[in-house]
């Protein structure tokens, strides 16, 4: 029901959102501003702590005006922990990028297959795929660890890439299913008449039409891979270790290296801030599997 109603969103541009009389409007502003401040404050803390000197980090009361230094960034990237965070950063980028590419390609193919073809057991298969979204990594970590160990793939990029691909597939398939379903079938029938094969239609006609969906699922997948912690910590140590593994090392720093870890935290958060704004429109749709558009 919701979806059916939500479909009409563009037609009735919320006439109900009328302007308030001034006291209510002022209260709205105040509440909205306070909560926005609350939601943004930690970002300010991450970035400023990364730019503070050690004495300023431990100061009481907190120091608000200070001369920024890049020393923490330098230490974190090139010195700290023997070899610095650069290799972790590179691993994170490579593993997120490749796993996202795989998830989007395989996911788009499957999503299109689900929308345009009918076969026995289709609904069951689709809902089984949906259910994999709910799989808690911690419940899989023991069998996955043993599988990866037996294949000799501990501390390898390929293990994390495949696991993250699987982790993001249900998201990609379910969101793109919605996007493919919105393509008018007539367009594809015209292509069929023009002599395109089924797979050509998928690749040359359907995929270009759902580009916004592809871009937003790719960004979401990349963020989820980028953020993932548990598999990375259990399955990698050094060669394929990602940023979260570096950050987990904070526990061993005796709670002293705040500046360095906040610097790495800043690097882990910045790309996400950028992409979140790019994503804006499709975020809720993506995070609820198209249940809310």
């Amino acid at each position: 029901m919701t979806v059916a109603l939500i479909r009409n969103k563009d037609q009735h541009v919320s006439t109900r959102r009328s302007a308030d009389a001034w006291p209510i409007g002022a209260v709205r502003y105040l509440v909205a501003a306070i909560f926005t401040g609350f939601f943004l404050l930690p970002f300010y803390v991450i970035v400023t702590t990364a730019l503070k000197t050690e004495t300023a980090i431990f100061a009481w009361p907190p120091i608000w005006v200070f001369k920024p230094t890049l020393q923490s960034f330098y230490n974190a990237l090139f010195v700290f922990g023997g070899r610095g965070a650069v290799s972790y950063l590179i691993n994170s980028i490579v593993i997120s990028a490749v796993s996202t590419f795989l998830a989007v390609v395989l996911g788009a193919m499957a999503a299109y297959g689900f929308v345009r073809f009918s076969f026995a057991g289709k609904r069951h298969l689709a809902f089984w795929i949906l259910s994999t979204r709910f799989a808690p990594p911690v419940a899989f970590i023991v069998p996955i660890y043993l599988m990866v160990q037996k294949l000799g793939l501990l501390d390898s990029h390929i293990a994390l890439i495949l696991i993250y691909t699987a982790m993001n597939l249900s998201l990609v398939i379910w969101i793109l299913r919605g996007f493919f379903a919105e393509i008018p079938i007539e367009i594809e029938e015209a292509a069929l008449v023009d002599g395109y094969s089924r797979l050509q239609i998928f690749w040359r006609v359907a995929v270009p039409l759902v580009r916004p969906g592809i871009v937003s699922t790719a960004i979401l997948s990349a963020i989820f891979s980028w953020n993932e912690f548990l598999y990375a910590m259990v399955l990698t140590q050094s060669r394929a270790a990602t940023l979260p593994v570096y950050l987990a090392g904070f526990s061993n720093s005796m709670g002293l290296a705040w500046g360095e870890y906040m610097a790495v935290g800043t690097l882990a958060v910045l790309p996400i801030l950028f992409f979140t704004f790019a994503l804006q429109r499709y975020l809720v749709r993506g995070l609820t599997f198209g249940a809310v558009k």
Partner: protein
Amino acid sequence: MKLAVQRRRAARVLITPAVAVLLALNLFPIVYALYISVHYWTLARPQPPRFAGLSNYADLFFDERFRNAVLVSLKFIVLAVGIELLLGFGLAFVFNARLRGIATLRKLTLLPSLVMPLVVGLVWFYMFNENFGLVNWIWVMLGGTRVPFLTQGTLALLSIVATDVWQWTPFVMLVFFAALQALPEYVYEAARIDGLSGCQIFFRVTLPLLRPAILIVLIIRAVDALRSLELVFMMTKGGPAGDTEVLPWYLYTAGFLSLDLGYAAAMAVLMLALVTVLSQLFARRLESQEAVL
């Protein structure tokens, strides 16, 4: 006839790769976890696993620490998700207004939901610090005395709840906001013509129409709160005295610190059973929406 064969082949080519990945990395690990859970299987000694029947499960039943972990997880989920839903619901109404600048504020609130959970844990760990943390500073400014937020039982759990609320309330708010935007105007006109008061409209029209969105966000948040262990890892390591030892954290320590894989797998199987129930509820919700399409 030929077309039907072609179509079936196309469907198979499109869907098989994704399904294969999910079979290998979702279904197989579940079966493997069941197998491990009925064995004495330790990483500590190099002896082969021995069949154990259901004794791992029986041990769980009598394990105080397991009972504690279930209870702590339950408290965490009920508190965090409860607060997120109430607060997010209220904020959706606050932000649902046509006021200059309020859309910008709303977009900014989006940021916490996509940030690496480990960084969230790191920055709130810093802010909750007893000696130089911002939260304590604000508390002292308001006339209190310094509070050891993360080393006192109940307070530690509440601090982690507060952190989770910080991260996920905006997401809940945006889902409700999208759902509110999608409510059709004519229903409200009809309600006004019928002479319903503002209060009656809220309880008899708005709330019932938002029910699907409430259910969806409730299930998504509950499942994600159940799996979350990053905040505990960063902020308390399950302490003090197990007061923040949530189920995933206990599972992780049993498997990879105590190296008792059979026992950890038994916990994983129970967790999967619970999540399966929740994901079925979610699937049914989506299915009933799709039926209308």
